[in-house]
């Protein structure tokens, strides 16, 4: 683990000096993590998550010189991703909703990626249920629930990413979770 941290520090130093291989190595290391979080933030829209991942790493490359190493690189990347997500959402909220509606009616796109037709259908249904329940949450609650419950980040890390107090994270988290629990407890207790 220590070796990993050290090698990451070396990679960051090299990348900050303009070494393309080091940059590629860092992107390779974090792109799955960021993509998974992006997928959750983008309400399970794979294409939007790809765009957000791309945007996050573009910003990572342009702002790399300014990275002070006060936070971990993953926290810094999450911070960029959330910022880009909020920016993008403001910019293209209506467009996304429109595209999603079209996808919801034509089906197929995501299902094609799933291992089996039945599994895909159940997965899709579950995602639909989750998104519907999430509609009751405020924007802050949604964001925090996605980062904490879906992505599994620590409360301390979320506070750092969003630049707010841990106590504030907990308040939004408990309220959001309560709303989800009230709507989804039956589903949660179902088998499978």
């Amino acid at each position, binding site marked *: 683990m220590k070796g990993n941290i050290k090698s990451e520090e070396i990679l960051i130093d090299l990348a900050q000096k303009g070494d393309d291989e080091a940059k590629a190595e860092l992107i*390779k290391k974090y792109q799955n993590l960021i993509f998974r979080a992006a997928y959750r933030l983008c309400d399970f829209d794979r294409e939007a998550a790809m765009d957000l991942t791309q945007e996050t790493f*573009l910003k990572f*490359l342009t702002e790399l010189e300014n990275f002070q190493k006060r936070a971990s690189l993953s926290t810094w990347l999450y911070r960029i991703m959330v910022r880009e997500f909020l920016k993008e959402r403001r910019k293209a909220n209506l467009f996304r909703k429109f595209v999603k509606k079209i996808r919801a009616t034509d089906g197929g796109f995501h299902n094609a990626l799933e291992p089996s037709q039945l599994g895909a259908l159940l997965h899709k249904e579950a995602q639909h249920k989750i998104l519907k329940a999430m509609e009751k949450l405020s924007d802050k609650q949604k964001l925090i629930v996605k980062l*904490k419950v879906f992505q599994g980040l620590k409360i301390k890390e979320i506070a750092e990413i969003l630049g707010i107090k841990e106590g504030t994270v907990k308040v939004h988290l*408990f309220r959001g979770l309560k709303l*989800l*629990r009230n709507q989804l407890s039956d589903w*949660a207790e179902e088998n499978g």
Partner: protein
Amino acid sequence: MGEKCAYLEKVILLILEEDLRDMEDVLNHIKICPVCSREKKVLSSLISKLREHSEPQPLTLSEFTHITSLIKTHPKKSKRSVQNFSIFKPILAFAIVILLLLGTLLLMNRGPKPSLVNLTPEDKEVIEKLDLLRELNTLEKLVNIAHQVPEKRSQRTILRRFTVFRSNFEYKGRNNFHV
């Protein structure tokens, strides 16, 4: 979360954060409190399902490559080149205008050379190869050798071409211009 218990918040934190300072205490409470015990069951199951169904399929190789390829088209570099271009753009445009003006003036002042105006493409080719043709003596020698000594086919072909070229030159030279 319907029923109340003073420990409920700690139970939720335990499920979410997976480690707590007073974890033992909370776990012991869950064993004896039906409210917290049920809450732990429901929430654990809910969180596990939320994580499961929000997990994307792993990135495919092409998606992975797509993101990594960003490094080659990283905007910082392209921005710099655009900036440089925008600085040099007016200078470049000015230079092109000057060159065009000079070119036009030169063309206007330069009347066509009478001896070259009516030349056929073949004549022009001969003029272009004049330096080579000035070595006619050498060519002549080569042709003579070719006639005397049997050569490989390729060499014979080359020499035959030289011969034809020379006779053409002599013919054109006689009729069109003086060397």
